[in-house]
Every structure is written in C-alpha cells, then in structure tokens.
C-alpha cells in the first residue's frame, strides 16, 4: 500500500512479507508420509510408508519394497523422491508398469493414482 511520507516521495511497505510471516499455515509442522497400499492381488491390504529417497520394487529378496507375486519381476520398478514427490520408473520389467491402466515408462505420482505391477495393484495416497 502506498503511503505518503512528508516530502514528495512515496514509500512502499513490503506488505507481503509482513503479512505472510503471520499466516498460521506457514508454520512448519510434521509431515505425514505418502503411502502405497496394495488394493488388489497378492499382498492385498499391505501398506508401505514412503520415507526414503529411493525404493526398489520387485519380488527379489534384496529389494526395499517387496511384492510377492510371480508376475512381478525381481527388480520391477524404482521409486525416487524429488521435491517431496515420488516418481515411479520401470526398471526393464517383463510386464511393465501401468498408471491408471496406461502403460508408462515413468510418471510423477499423484494422490489416488493406481499403479499396477504384474497382478499387484497399488494405490498411491499423498501425505501432507
């Protein structure tokens, strides 16, 4: 808001900065993690809390997000986090990665997305 000061010049207060620091929602608060829930196929009901920057998804013994199905490749896909968002990427799997029914090579995930790896269907639920 322009304010007349004595003399002929105008001063502009930085209203945005001042007000923004008082907005409640901007206070840091604990984040709720994103989730992947198996909603169909083997392991139905299993929930994975996503906290790490990288997950390897597959049926292999040494992956960090294990899916117990023969239709899933040993290393099927990778999940990586950037700017608080997870991206799924097909790791040369045999049966591919479907995002809401569409075969994709990779995708940034959004709340409510359904991922299908082999016969395992996972729902992505965004935290806050």
């Amino acid at each position, binding site marked *: 808001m322009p304010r007349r000061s004595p003399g002929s010049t105008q001063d502009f207060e930085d209203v945005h900065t001042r007000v923004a620091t008082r907005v409640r929602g901007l206070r840091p608060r604990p984040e709720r993690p994103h989730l992947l829930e198996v909603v169909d196929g083997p392991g139905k009901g299993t929930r994975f809390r996503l906290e790490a920057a990288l997950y390897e998804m597959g049926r292999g013994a040494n992956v960090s997000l294990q899916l117990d199905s023969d239709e899933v490749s040993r290393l099927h896909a990778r999940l990586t986090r950037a700017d608080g968002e997870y991206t799924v*990427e097909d790791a040369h799997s045999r049966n591919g990665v479907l995002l809401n029914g569409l*075969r994709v090579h990779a*995708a940034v995930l959004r709340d409510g997305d359904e991922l299908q790896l082999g016969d395992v269907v996972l729902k992505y639920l965004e935290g806050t």
Partner: protein
Amino acid sequence: MSSEDLFVRFWGVRGSIPTPGPRTRRYGGNTSCVEVRAGKTLLVFDAGTGLRELGVHLGRSTDSPVTVHLFLSHPHWDHIQGFPFFGPAYESSTTIYVYGPRGDDKHYQLLSGQMSNAYFPVRFSELGARILARSFKGTSVDAGDATVHLFEQKHPGGSLGFRVEYAGKSVVFSTDNELDQLLLDKQAAFESPDELRKLPKELLKPVQDADLLIADAQYADDEYAQRVGWGHPRANTVVDLAAQAGVRRLALTHHDPMHSDREIDVVVSEAELRARRLGFEDLEIFGAREGVTLKI
C-alpha cells in the same frame, strides 16, 4: 537405455494459459511442451511454461553440454512463454536449434521478440547459449538422429504439426488445429454427432499409422458450438482422425484452462467410449499428463 529407444515426456499439457491450483493438479497446469528423446537426440516441441521445468530437470540430470532441437507449432503465448525461463539457454555450453519453414525465420524472430524491451529484463542477445535458426528443406529435416516432417494446420495465424520418425517408430505432435473446420461435412457433425466424422485424405496422411499421436483436443462436443473459429477441435473429432488414420495411441492434450482434472477425465472417457462404439477397439486413448514418460 538402448540407443534405439524413443521416449516421450509431457512437460506442459494445458492450452491457452497456465492453470495452477488443486483443480488441475493431476493433469498439470503448465502450457504446451513435450520432450522427445530419440536415442541421444533431444527434441522439444513447443516452449510453453512446461519448458521451464524441463530446464530444471536437465540442469539436475546432466553435466554434459545440452543440444536442443526446438520445434514451435506457432508463436501464440502458450507455446513460447517458457523460453525466457529455460535455464540451459543461459549456459554457454548449450546449443539450441530453432526450426521453422524454409525461407522463414519467423519463429526464431518471435521467440527473441518476446524478450525485448519492456517484456522481459534479459535480452535474447544476452543469453549464453548458441541459438540458431534452422529451416526445413521442403517439408522435412534431419534433427540429430531423428527425421522430422512438418505439416500445416488450421489455426488463426496458422500452426504447424510435426511427425518424428526414429528407428522405425513415429510420434506426431499436432496442437492448435481446428480439425472441425476441415471436415468433409461440417454440418453432419452437429446433426448426427455419433456418426464417424470423415476427414479429407490429405489430413490423414501426416498421422497415418503413427505409434503415438499427441493432439489438441480442447473441447467437448457440447462446448464447441460456442467456439467455432477459435482454432481448436472437438476431442471426439480427433478420435475420428486417429481411428481413420490407424493411429495406435492417442494422447489428448492442450486441455482447456476451464477444465478441471475431473472434467478432463470425462472428455477422455467419452473419447474412449466413442472409439469402442465406432468399432476401433485397438486405438488406445488417454489424457496427456505432466510428468508422464512413455516408451514408444
């Protein structure tokens, strides 16, 4: 990643103007920009606001010099506005080829013109990258390892469509194209909208048998009557084009800024239903969405 691979990534799928906010979060609010990777060659179609994020991504993912083959459908704002914010354009190690029709560097001039004087603080001439205008020889050009063919489209002021060929695969980028103005029987599409809308042969040719067609599909049928001549087609007409030309996958894009994610879902599912009803079972249809990469 084999050198024969062809990838397509959507960086901006919105038409007309960016639409940030929760209503459009899933499909995304950035304007027109598509990345095509043909082996090691990087092609970019349109420089809408999605281009900024591609620039951020390139900055994080590679240390080696970037070469971009940039194709612009036309110079409306939603197709050029990301360019001044494209990080690699400020790097001296970057090379950007801006393609245009033979004997016409209009695209290059308009891209640079938006960075003049009052519009933007940095001059085009102050950008660090080597930015060069390149012309098509006739209707095709070799861009790195890929071949790109151009075709003219129906849009106020004109627009260009592009077909990329690489390793036996093909992707067509066709946005801002009012196909409905070119139908063999325009009236029939209003009177019996469920019938197949026939298009002239010369329109089928550039998209014939494409592995992927990325096409402007801005309007639902019931919206179009109020928007005739605005330069965009009915989504259902694009379905008919793809079906008649034997396209394998169809990505609907240039989403209307008024359309929320749910409304785009409706346009897409109506399009799918139409294809099935008309007997085109093999045509796969989906809504282009930011952050999605397809392997062709």
